[in-house]
């Protein structure tokens, strides 16, 4: 049997793989939450999920729709106040990885979730910062999940909501940001990582069937491509099954016990 998957599915599976078991992960809602929960159900059962609503070690059986769903509180090791999440957990650098989305992301992985256009007179008013500026500043590292398009991947974000690598190498240190910042950006087309020297986002992997030109066309700057460009390892059956269970797209068209034998 040949497995098939959607672009969103390989993005989510690839994002999930970026998480190491046992890590403490600060999870944004939406794509990051789906990926983090997939990781917990596959290779990283001891991934420790923190949501900004105050739930520590949440183990939701179904995908939460918001960062404050009841399922998070009911399955958490502990529920604390919002000030405590930010002051006692995030700020001192206790979180291994921050998992963020973006409306716009630029060449240096700076993130905009505030406005498209001018701040005072916006074209599109977006939700705003939420927890992201301090997640991007204080987690040991940051992973970003965002769908690839020229609208999202811009040369320079209209508004820096959360600092990635600023204007390049050494900028985080100059600003006094303690974490390493975005180490990987995972999209529905491939994977980008900051260049070790310049910190400019560079394409390091394309998903199976995606052409490099396709990614470059969906990117609003002249995207650099790593010399050793990889092809993303395709999603495995377990990954897809678990993901579809999470998103409600799993169709049990045959007994599960036989599925693993095929």
């Amino acid at each position, binding site marked *: 049997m040949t497995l098939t998957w959607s672009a969103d599915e390989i993005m989510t599976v690839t994002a999930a793989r970026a998480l190491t078991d046992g890590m403490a992960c600060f999870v944004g809602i939406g794509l990051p939450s789906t990926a983090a929960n997939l990781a917990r159900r596959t290779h990283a059962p001891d991934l420790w999920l923190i949501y900004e609503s105050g739930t520590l070690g949440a183990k939701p059986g179904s995908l939460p*729709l918001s960062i404050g769903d*009841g399922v998070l509180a009911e399955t958490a090791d502990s529920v604390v106040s919002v000030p405590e999440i*930010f*002051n006692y957990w995030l700020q001192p650098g206790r979180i291994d990885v921050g998992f963020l989305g973006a409306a716009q992301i630029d060449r240096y992985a700076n993130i905009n979730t*505030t406005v498209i256009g001018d701040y005072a007179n916006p074209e599109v008013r977006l939700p705003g910062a939420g927890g992201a500026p*301090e997640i991007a500043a204080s987690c040991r590292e940051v992973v970003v999940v965002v769908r690839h398009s020229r609208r999202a991947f811009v040369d320079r974000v209209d508004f820096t909501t959360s600092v990635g690598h600023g204007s390049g190498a050494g900028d*985080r240190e100059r600003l006094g940001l303690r974490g390493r910042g975005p180490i990987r950006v995972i999209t529905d087309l491939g994977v980008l990582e900051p260049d070790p020297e310049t910190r400019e986002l560079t394409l390091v992997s394309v998903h199976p069937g995606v052409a490099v030109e396709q990614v470059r066309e969906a990117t609003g700057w002249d995207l650099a491509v790593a010399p050793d460009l990889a092809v993303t390892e395709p999603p495995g059956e377990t990954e897809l099954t678990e993901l579809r269970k999470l998103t409600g797209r799993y169709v049990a068209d045959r007994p599960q016990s036989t599925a693993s034998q095929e």
Partner: protein
Amino acid sequence: MIVPLDEAVGELVHDGDTVALEGFTHLIPVAAGHEIIRQRRCGLTLVRMTPDVVYDQMIGAGCARRLVFSWGGNPGVGSLHRFRDAVQNSWPVPLEIEEHSHAGMANRYVAGASGLPFAVLRGYLGTDLASRTATIRTVECPFTGERLAAVPALNPDVAIVHAQRADRAGNVQMWGITGVQKEAVFAARRSLVTVEEVVDELAPVPGQVVLPHRVVTAVAEAPGGAAPSYAQGYYERDNAAYQAWDAISRDRGAFGRWLESVRSAAPGTVSHPTREGRP
């Protein structure tokens, strides 16, 4: 201490006040927000970390002249269209915004609750928020010389929160995700707590947060008053209502009809899109 919701809002919320309705996804004081709409309060400075549907409604109804916040959206659904219309088109009235991060807002409440004029945090470094928001400054550590972000205390005129229970003396008990509600109540000059029920005795519950009657100005019974958000132990989140709001709020006309239905409803009624027309 225990008063009807319409009286409580009438007495505690005045035109031009700074008002914080808090509740982090859970226990959002929606019934109180609708009562503010019904009483046609205007010129309010609305404060809230996560303005969502109820703030979209209050903004669309023209209650607010200013919004202090850190994330405005319809959680799990998308954008707030009344909020966007106010910011982008000044409809129905112009809306000034004062924008922070969650960490900044949480610490502003903490400072307010603590009787301090400001709070210190590691925040905003390198972001455009720091240059766009006048209430973000820096302070130097007198021991290490390090520069840190400083934000001023939030001390709303009124804080409004929803909780599961209160006793007749006005002690309030809530549990589950309790967000920044304690800090908001402590920071405010006056406070109103709507509750699912008033009971004789508050049986302890694991994870409970108790607001002693001394920090509570008024309690109003409002069963279902957090819907379409949820009240742990009482009812689930009505996700369909959040989705339904998206369509209503996109269109000024549809919103106007919704607004009329809220204004003409009996005081204390909670109007939710998916519940309209049901018995």
